[in-house]
């Protein structure tokens, strides 16, 4: 609020200046009443005093000045002539405003009667107009009464000139999306042929079905800036609590026992759907039908959901059944890839269209199946609260566990296998990280230590952080221990980060005394191995005296990923698409220019690249034109040179089996449509 005080100080200064300007200008006008520029200047000065006065809460000034402004506006457009009387009144008004202003700093009350007198005199100069007075727009919000869930149909048909005043319709849709469930269907029927198309014009209109707990006025307000450059219809099509739905003819017949449900269904199946009939009869475009169907669907979903909420129905299913389902979907994805490839080779139109349908269905089925397996991580979190409570009292420490992002969802398998490593990391923080209350007070920290356990989405990954405000890691102690254990030699130069990573080495423990809590140092290497087996990574960061942060990065799902299929030599490889940023060509010319430095100039940015052909020791028959897949690894851009980029690929991950366990650069394999095996590259370890 100090800002406001500062603003009002600036305003007072400004108003003083404007008042001086008014005095000067009025005298000019008295000498030369025809001076239009002076009249404009006078109007602006008054306008500023009024406008800014209202902004900074000087309503007295704003209200009074409003009457002066009205009079001057009439002078400006020629309906009121400048007389000596008017000049006197303006000067009087000016003095009055100055008095009010002065009163603000001194706290003195100004003469209100004087103001009223001036206003009356000003108003007597011209006939009063209707609606001229300030009408404060008291829009009564209809939101209060519309707290019930309501579905609206919004038909938004902008004029072609929509873009020419800088409107971006997408922002309007985004605003609607924040209100509730929103389905938007674009209507393209007015789109002209490309030759007649003016790219600066908007030819699209939109049908929007919105379910929200807001009133109709709030929705219309979204379109307030475009209301006179569009046709807008907003209608309520469903409201919670209203009696729902008319009964259909068939339902009535069944209820009266005139017909059986089967008989009706049989007859119905013979009949084409209304939408198809209408489109066939060319009465209406397909997109219009689609828009109407969207509306129908959303209302149905909303109503169904309401029914379901009432029943709160869910089914418990044995976990193995889900696992089998995922396996089957995996097989299906592989088979579907085969079908797609086969149909491509046959170039049979009908077969291709069937293959495309299967592809679409498969990917929907896959997403659905995966989403069934997703579980909120919160279930694991709640176990830890208890753990922290019990252990901290056992250790004589005061520790609070704060959890964030409990609703973050991860694959069931990932969550199950994450329990132990997380438990271990939290125990470590409890035991080694957070100090005893006495020690904490000595170093100026609050008695109570805090451990924050947080989960959040980062692209195709979930990042879990465990942060404590304890003592941090002792780099020297770690190094000494590592030397003692023979993990590094005395001369090894290590950055802090490298030193921290030593604690993940097998057989490492820095706890001076072995306690029942953090065990015997068999932990951290096991933690790391578990996380890596989940195709995740672990990172540790620590500031001495301030605390440590451990970051686990885990893939959302284990079974199927989106990959980029590439070839090197005769082999196929898959790069996880989540890491890929773009692909560029690597011509012989570029290679020669870089003088063997394996560095690419990508739009001015230096990007190093790795030749996978060399890395994998594949023979020397490389093509003239190679490709670089640019990836984002540990927030750095790195290119991988391959022979050919084939394209996106639904990758069902198969593990490589124990014989290949030491293969660091591969995270698995997948089977392509034609039965070929493609290896999945682990970009994190390749770098």
């Amino acid at each position, binding site marked *: 609020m100090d800002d406001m005080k500062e*603003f009002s100080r600036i305003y007072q200064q400004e108003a003083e200046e404007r008042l001086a300007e008014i005095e000067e200008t009025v005298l000019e006008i008295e000498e030369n009443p025809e001076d239009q520029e002076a009249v404009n200047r006078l109007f602006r000065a008054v306008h500023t005093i009024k*406008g800014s006065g209202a*902004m900074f809460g000087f309503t007295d000034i704003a209200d009074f000045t409003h009457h002066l402004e009205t009079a001057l506006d009439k002078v400006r457009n020629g309906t009121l002539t400048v007389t000596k009387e008017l000049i006197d009144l303006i000067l009087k008004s000016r003095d009055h405003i100055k008095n009010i202003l002065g009163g603000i700093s001194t706290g003195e009350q100004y003469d209100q009667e004087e103001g009223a007198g001036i206003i009356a005199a000003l108003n007597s100069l011209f006939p009063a107009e209707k609606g001229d007075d300030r009408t404060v727009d008291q829009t009564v919000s209809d939101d209060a009464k519309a707290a019930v869930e309501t579905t609206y149909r919004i038909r938004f048909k902008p004029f072609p000139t929509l873009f020419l005043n*800088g409107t971006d319709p997408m922002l309007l849709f985004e605003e609607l999306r924040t209100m509730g469930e929103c389905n938007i269907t674009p209507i393209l029927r007015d789109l002209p042929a490309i030759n007649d198309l003016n790219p600066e014009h908007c030819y699209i209109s939109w049908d929007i079905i919105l379910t929200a707990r807001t009133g109709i006025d709030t929705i219309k307000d979204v379109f307030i800036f475009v209301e006179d450059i569009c046709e807008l219809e907003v209608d309520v099509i469903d409201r919670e609590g209203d009696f729902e739905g008319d009964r259909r003819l068939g339902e009535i017949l069944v209820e009266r026992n005139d017909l059986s449900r089967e008989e009706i269904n049989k007859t119905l199946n013979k009949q084409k759907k209304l939408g198809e009939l209408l489109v066939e009869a060319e009465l209406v475009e397909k997109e219009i039908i689609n828009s109407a169907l969207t509306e129908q669907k959303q209302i149905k979903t909303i109503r169904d959901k309401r029914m379901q909420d009432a029943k709160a129905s869910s089914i418990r299913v044995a976990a193995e059944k889900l696992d089998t389902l995922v396996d089957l979907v995996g097989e299906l994805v592989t088979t579907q890839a085969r079908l797609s490839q086969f149909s491509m080779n046959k170039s049979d139109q009908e077969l291709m269209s069937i293959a495309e349908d299967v592809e679409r269905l498969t990917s929907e089925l896959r997403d659905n199946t995966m989403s069934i397996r997703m579980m909120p991580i919160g279930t694991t979190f709640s176990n830890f609260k208890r753990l922290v409570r019990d252990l901290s009292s056992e250790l004589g420490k005061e520790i609070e566990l704060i959890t964030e992002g409990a609703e973050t969802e991860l694959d069931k398998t990932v969550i199950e296998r994450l329990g132990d490593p997380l438990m271990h990391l939290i125990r470590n923080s409890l035991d080694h990280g957070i100090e005893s209350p006495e020690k904490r007070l000595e170093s100026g920290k609050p008695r109570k230590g805090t451990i924050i356990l947080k989960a959040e989405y980062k692209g195709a990954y979930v990042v879990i952080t465990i942060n404590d405000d304890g003592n941090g890691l002792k780099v020297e102690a770690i190094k000494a221990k590592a030397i003692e254990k023979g993990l590094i030699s005395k001369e090894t130069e290590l950055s802090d980060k490298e030193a921290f990573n030593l604690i993940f080495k097998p057989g490492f423990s820095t706890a001076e005394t072995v306690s029942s809590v953090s065990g015997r140092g068999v932990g951290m290497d096991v933690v790391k191995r578990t996380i890596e087996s989940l195709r995740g990574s672990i990172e540790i960061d620590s500031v001495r005296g301030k605390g440590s942060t451990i970051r686990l990065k885990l893939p959302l799902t284990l079974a199927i990923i989106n990959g980029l299929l590439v070839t090197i030599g005769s082999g196929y490889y898959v790069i996880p698409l989540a890491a890929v940023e773009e692909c560029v060509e690597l011509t012989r010319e570029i290679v020669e220019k870089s003088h063997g430095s394996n560095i690419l100039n990508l739009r001015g940015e230096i990007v190093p690249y790795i030749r996978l052909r060399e890395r994998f020791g594949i023979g020397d028959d490389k093509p003239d034109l190679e490709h670089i897949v640019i990836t984002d690894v540990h927030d750095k851009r790195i290119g991988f040179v391959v022979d050919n980029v084939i394209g996106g690929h639904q990758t069902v991950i198969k593990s490589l089996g124990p014989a290949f366990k030491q293969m660091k650069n591969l995270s698995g394999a997948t089977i392509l449509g034609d039965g070929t095996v493609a290896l999945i590259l682990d970009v994190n370890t390749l770098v």
Partner: protein
Amino acid sequence: MSKVIMTVDDSISIRQMVSFSLKKEGYDVVEAVDGVDAMKKLNEGNPVHMMITDLNMPNMDGIELIKNVRTNAKYKFMPIIMLTTESQEERKQAGKSAGATGWIVKPFNPEQLLGVIRKVLK
């Protein structure tokens, strides 16, 4: 990169209030005292992503400024918000036909200002 918003107003107190509120939200702000100053800064300075202009200003008023800005291919589709008062219905219409994207009625507070910006600036 943060978005650049130009505030055009002959009233220093309004400019300061707009500027302060926007900077607090992470926008970069360019101030101009009237239409002529605004045109000069648009043509010479760094690109601007949005403009907030008063209507009553000396030298070149807001309506004329909006018209001029819209003739520049670079700013043809830029969001422009005009500051109006409730008694200026006519001027508001003129501003709209000149190509203003939206408006704010004075007096307004910083939240209202930011609400309008979110409506028009991506």
